[in-house]
């Protein structure tokens, strides 16, 4: 069976530093997590997947189609959308406007219908607004629709980013540390939401996460990166007991204790 999304032998160098080295990754459905210590190359991998970086070697395909050389907006139009580790909302726009921007790639209208305000334009526009309201509803932000994004609480901003990414109607959603800065119960609620998305929309999700409780609970499969290389891959419970993974985390003296607890 061919994978929905596949990366093979992906390498990215920045000057003398190899940020990602010959990483293979494939996903067909469900939730896959990418974990690893800080600086392991997780976000770099995301940036390659979404076209922000061009890999030096290797190939990336989505639904059998190569993504190398495509612009980020073209990749989004194909059905891959993402969130960012450091939230990158359109801060001075309202929540619902943020979601509406996410729909841009699939609006089939040029300049003329906008200027003439044709019936078709108004129909499509009205459809977009109600769809955006529905998406906000889905992440529990319906009441904040008219709030300016920068005024939302931190957890709401993270969920708004997910709603905005969903607005592109992706088949594959990439989430970069979606629970960062959330309380354990907020994180739990978010994971429940992700599971529903997988079930309802048949969405595949790749997750970068530091919260191990979340990772172990929600992932179908876990990939571990260290120093830009893949050191382990498999179901969460197997990865958890992999000696190389434990070494990668415990080998770092200063935060060994915290990581060990987190891995428990």
């Amino acid at each position: 069976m061919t994978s929905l999304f596949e990366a093979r032998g992906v390498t990215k160098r920045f000057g003398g530093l190899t940020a990602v080295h010959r990483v293979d990754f494939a996903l067909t459905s469900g939730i896959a997590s990418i974990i690893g210590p800080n600086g392991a190359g997780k976000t770099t991998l995301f940036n390659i997947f979404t076209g922000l970086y061009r890999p030096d070697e290797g190939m990336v395909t989505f639904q059998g189609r190569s993504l190398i050389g495509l612009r980020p907006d073209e990749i989004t139009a194909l059905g891959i959308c993402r969130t960012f580790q450091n939230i990158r909302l359109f801060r001075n726009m309202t929540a619902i406007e943020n979601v509406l921007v996410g729909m841009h790639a699939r609006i089939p209208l040029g300049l003329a219908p906008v200027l003439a305000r044709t019936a078709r334009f108004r129909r499509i526009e009205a459809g977009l607004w109600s769809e955006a309201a529905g998406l906000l509803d889905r992440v529990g932000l319906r009441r904040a629709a008219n709030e300016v994004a920068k005024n939302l609480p931190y957890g709401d901003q993270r969920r708004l980013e997910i709603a905005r990414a969903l607005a592109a109607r992706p088949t594959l959603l990439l989430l970069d540390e979606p629970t960062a800065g959330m309380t354990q119960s907020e994180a739990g609620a978010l994971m429940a939401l992700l599971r529903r998305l997988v079930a309802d929309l048949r969405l595949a999700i790749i997750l970068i996460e530091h919260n191990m409780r979340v990772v172990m609970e929600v992932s179908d499969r876990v990939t571990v990166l260290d120093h830009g290389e893949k050191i382990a891959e498999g179901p969460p419970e197997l990865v958890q007991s992999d000696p190389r993974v434990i070494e990668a985390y415990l080998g770092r003296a200063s935060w060994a204790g915290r990581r060990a607890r987190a891995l428990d």
Partner: protein
Amino acid sequence: MILHGVAAVGLLAVSGFAVATYPRSVLAFLLFQGAVLFAYLARIPPWLKWSLLAVALLGMMPIIGAYNGYYLEIATQVGIFVALALGLNIVVGLAGLLDLGYVAFYAVGAYAWAIYGSPHANLIFGGGFPLPAWTFYLFLVVGLAVGAVTGILLGLPVLRLRGDYLAIVTLGFGEVIRVLANNLDKPINLTNGPKGITPISRPPAPFGISYGEYFYFLVLLIVLVVILVNRRLEDSHIGRAWEAIREDELAAQAMGVPLVRMKLLAFACGASFAGIMGVVFSAKQVFINPESFTFLESIGVLAMVILGGMGSIPGAVLGATVVTVLNLQVLKGFSLWLNELKSAGVTILGFNLADLPTQFEPAKYERMIFGVILILMMIFRPQGILPARRRQRELAEPAPAAVQPQVEPTIP
């Protein structure tokens, strides 16, 4: 509400009367402008607001112009700058692309009509020019197209630049256009260099109205169209994409906004308004030369956008009005007044103004006062006079199918 309505009507009537009684008084005309602004801002029903504005702009203003033609000239200038400010507002205010050479597009439009609408083109193509005056209307469209194309030509090489770098390149572009206009009198005389082009033909004014009135109404009409276009753009996925680019270019692209296309569209839309107004300007002035398109003009239009409130349509309109009126009327009137004091030999605190050295000519204060006003504005109201307000929308209740179980309340 009733109080506001009465006040708006009253102010407008009083100010109109004042201008009619003292047609030379700067203050009377300022009062009229204030009354128009009040009518716009007052909490009154929309029908009353728009009919008051229509009466003021369509009826009272031309009558005032009959008393004092200079005021109609000021109003026309205001209209021209409003259109320019609205065009630049798309590029700078919405899309966040800092353009310091905006007046170049205005120049391109102006020269398009100046060359073909004057005998000057005979030097280039042999006989047959100027084109018949009615082609002026055709050239409004040509000006739009030429402006848009120039905008795209500028946009293409600077797409990768942001912020400061973009500002520098656009500044250079503005200067290039001006220097070209200044020097393209050899080897082929396209622009007649610093001597400028004259006489530029005007279309015959319809219904026997004067040229002052004709250009006033023409500019007013174009401004209304520009405002309409601006609103429709802003209120669509195109406007949202522009704002997204302004807020976070990288995130916008990651959400599927094609950066190249949307940025070029912003440059083209903004430039096209300037192109049209350039055509009107050259016909109105009959004479143009490169002096009308200096860097200072670009900065002036930018100041209008920033003063009014970036990304805000009413802000751009008000900013353009305030800056133009300040420059053409208030500060001019102020220096005239100082000059009178000086020539009358008035003494202040034992100092005779007649002894004032020439370095302190009142006319020289104009720029300084304008600069001080800008600085004070930026300190005390950096968001502008009428900042862009986020539109609040009433959202229809979601269709039942869209109602999903909510995320559990997150507060433990």
